[in-house]
């Protein structure tokens, strides 16, 4: 019985690896063919501009996020929660909404048009990307510093060390690996996002937008595949880091509670951090105000029937994808926990590779691999019901969403398991508590909050990301990001703000429900 269950799990895993692995091989092959035909003109310059923009946004977001996290750690818990809410709510803001807010601030009819230099183009993209990336380092630092032992801070201070030494000896060591990993994720996210350039590019070309246009407008899939593979290259150092040292993405989850405010002596470092925090809050306030003003002044109906349909369809697909992703993530986490270290490393590596894979690369790969008439090693793909193929429509959307979100469930479940105190786990074993009861009474209560948080993050990612969804979407499955881009194409900013607000409320309600259910357990 046990062997049969194991075999079934392994078979499912193999199918999943094949289902996702084949598109990756396909896009790689397409990219190599395109490369063999020669690099498209201007690609090097586009790549350099993209890298500079994404690198700049990553650096600025790191500065803002880490400075704000340091300020937050020195604030009393109640004030700290306010700062948390201000910065972490940015996770609910999709990049195209941030770009639209930048237009509302500094565009031709923007709120501060007369005071600011023209924002469309590189400065605007930098601002929008930085704003959407801010919560990443902030969350990483806040989670990493939950585990900081205040006694170590006391030890530095009573031995004559100041804030600088506290940073070097106590606050930086737990931060380095998670922030290094998060920085790579930020860079990849910024590089691979086509929506900010779609709104704000001006005359500045970027890789992600080029790939998007190649597919959506000009149908040159070879160039698109080449660009998509280029976009995935920065992931390699992260994968090497993961292969060498295990998952730094799982580490910050292992905190010990919020803890009291750190009392550090006054220093230029703290003053700079506070100034950075004020600047960050000022930028957020300006973008929010501009969006609110633009929405309140908008003529006519803010949301048409199409928006409601897109919201419903997106939610439906997101929940369907969750139904696939959550069990898949939990199964791989369970297999990794029970298997030999090598198997665990392999499963962690596969899941994390998917987690950090750019949406553009994944979407294009699925589209190339499963569209109608695509040759595969076992023959040409047959059409599905009604002539639809896997490459477009609901099935493909659910597939790409599930593939890009199952890893987060995997990481959360692994971290949840790791949080179980060793004493408790061994006591349960010594007392002869069976595996099923251990799972229900010990593992799930520990892992459930993390899986719920990961679930909320997944929903956000699913509902607002342009890629991979837009690359596999079809007219019969309207999605929020595609609609938003369409609205922005027509310079309709206000409906996008309202749509984002609706999505945020929906996600907050679902996340609140999940958290309440977790507490009830």
């Amino acid at each position, binding site marked *: 019985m046990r062997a049969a269950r194991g075999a079934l799990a392994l078979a499912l895993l193999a199918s999943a690896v094949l289902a996702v692995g084949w598109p990756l091989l396909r896009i790689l092959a397409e990219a190599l063919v395109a490369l063999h035909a020669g690099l498209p003109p201007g690609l090097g310059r586009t790549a350099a501009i993209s890298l500079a923009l994404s690198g700049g946004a990553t650096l600025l977001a790191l500065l803002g996020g880490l400075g704000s996290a340091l300020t937050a750690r020195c604030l009393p818990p109640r004030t700290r929660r306010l700062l948390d809410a201000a910065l972490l709510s940015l996770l609910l803001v999709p990049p195209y909404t941030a770009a639209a807010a930048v237009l509302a601030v500094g565009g031709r009819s923007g709120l501060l048009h007369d005071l600011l230099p023209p924002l469309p183009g590189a400065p605007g993209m930098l601002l929008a990307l930085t704003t959407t990336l801010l919560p990443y380092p902030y969350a990483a630092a806040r989670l990493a510093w939950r585990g900081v032992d205040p006694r170590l801070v*006391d*030890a530095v*201070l009573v*031995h004559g*060390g100041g804030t600088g030494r506290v940073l070097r000896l106590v606050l930086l060591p737990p931060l380095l690996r998670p922030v290094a990993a998060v920085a790579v994720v930020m860079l990849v996210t910024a590089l691979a996002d086509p929506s900010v350039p779609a709104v704000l590019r001006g005359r500045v070309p970027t890789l992600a937008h080029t790939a998007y246009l190649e597919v959506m407008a000009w149908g040159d899939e070879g160039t698109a595949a080449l660009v998509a593979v280029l976009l995935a290259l920065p992931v390699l150092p992260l994968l090497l880091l993961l292969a060498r040292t295990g998952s730094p993405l799982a580490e910050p989850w292992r905190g010990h509670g919020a803890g009291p405010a750190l009392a550090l002596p006054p220093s230029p470092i703290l003053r700079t951090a506070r100034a950075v925090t004020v600047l960050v809050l000022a930028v957020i306030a300006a973008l929010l105000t501009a969006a609110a003003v633009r929405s309140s002044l908008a003529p006519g109906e803010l949301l048409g029937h199409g928006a409601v349909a897109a919201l419903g369809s997106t939610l439906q697909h997101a929940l369907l994808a969750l139904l696939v992703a959550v069990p898949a993530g939990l199964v791989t986490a369970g297999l990794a926990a029970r298997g030999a270290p090598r198997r665990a490393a392999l499963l962690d590596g596969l899941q994390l590779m998917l987690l950090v894979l750019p949406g553009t690369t994944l979407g294009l790969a699925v589209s190339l691999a499963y569209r109608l008439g695509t040759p595969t090693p076992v023959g040409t793909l047959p059409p599905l019901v009604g002539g639809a193929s896997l490459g477009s429509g609901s099935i493909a959307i659910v597939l790409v969403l599930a593939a890009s979100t199952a890893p987060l469930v995997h990481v959360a479940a692994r971290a949840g398991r790791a949080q179980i105190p060793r004493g408790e786990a061994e006591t349960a074993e010594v007392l002869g508590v069976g595996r099923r009861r251990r799972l229900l009474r010990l593992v799930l209560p520990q892992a459930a909050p993390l899986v719920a948080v990961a679930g909320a993050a997944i929903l956000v990612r699913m509902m607002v990301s342009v890629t991979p969804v837009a690359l596999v979407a079809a007219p019969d499955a309207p999605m929020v990001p595609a609609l938003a881009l369409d609205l922005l194409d027509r310079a309709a900013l206000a409906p996008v703000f309202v749509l984002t607000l609706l999505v945020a409320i929906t996600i907050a309600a679902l996340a609140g429900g999940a958290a309440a259910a977790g507490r009830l357990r």
Partner: protein
Amino acid sequence: MTPALEIRGAPCGDLQVAPGELLAVIGPSGAGKTTLLREIAGLDPLPQGRVLLHGRDMTAVPVHRRGVTMMFEVPALFAQLDVAENVALALPAARGTLARDQLETALTALDLHHLARRRPQELSAGQRQRVALARALVSRPEVLLVDEPLAHVDPAARVALRREILRTHRRMGTATLYVTHDWAEALAVADRLAVLREGRFVQIGAPQEVYRRPRDAWVAQRIGVPNLLPCPVLGTAPGRVLVRPLGRELWVPADPRLADGREEALVLAHARALRVVAGPDAPADELDPSSGRILGGSFGGDHMDYDVETAAGTLVVRRTLGPGEEPLEVGTPVGVELVADAAWAVVRD
């Protein structure tokens, strides 16, 4: 002479520590011992009053500039640094020759040379505390604050580490405030003792004085006085009161506050202040208040501590065992006598 450390006008009361003195602060959990140390170090603000170091007011000086170091209950070593680096952390200029000499001296003094390149996680609990002590002393602080350093050390290593702390303290002559809740430890290390109850000092004095002349029943119970005998005061003389514990009138050394006409006293007697009388000398009359019966006993090597049931309650009585002498059996009828000069009478609250 200017005290090395002085607390004035604080809620806990005034306190002075002389240069080179080791003052142990003792009290139960929650009495405010650690809070007091943190306030002196500057980690927490002093609610009122002042902290002076060698006469200089340090109340407003931030923690890292006070010239005070602290050794915590847990060693608080940095896992990413080795032993030598952890110790050198407390030196302001870690690259100077003087700093290197100081580091060498500290490592040698605490016998840590052979562990210098090890990481904290490779050390035993006792070794980690030795590293923490070396780190606390390497910068030759004006005042050292020590917070229950032996709390997490196993009993065998505890005695050795206590000796190490004392030896190092004597050699370096740093004024030290040593917090503990263990009376045996406090009595063993302290030049003076300060007893803390609910955030206030209730008695400060030499260890012998506090041990022999506790201020009240609360202090007596905390230092392990097992026998508290309430008695009416029959008469007073300078430094003594006449009481009748266990059926015999005795002039017992007394707290001066008993001279102001109080009617009730509490006679405090360590186990060795009572004598057990067995065999033919034991009182034959069971109604005699000094007569009793052995309930049980604990073996202490060269002595036995007997629990004796008497009309005054169950008393703990110590009896030194002579060569080849067997302990008394449970149920043996005995008499109990109080050695007047070894007892101490206090006001009965």
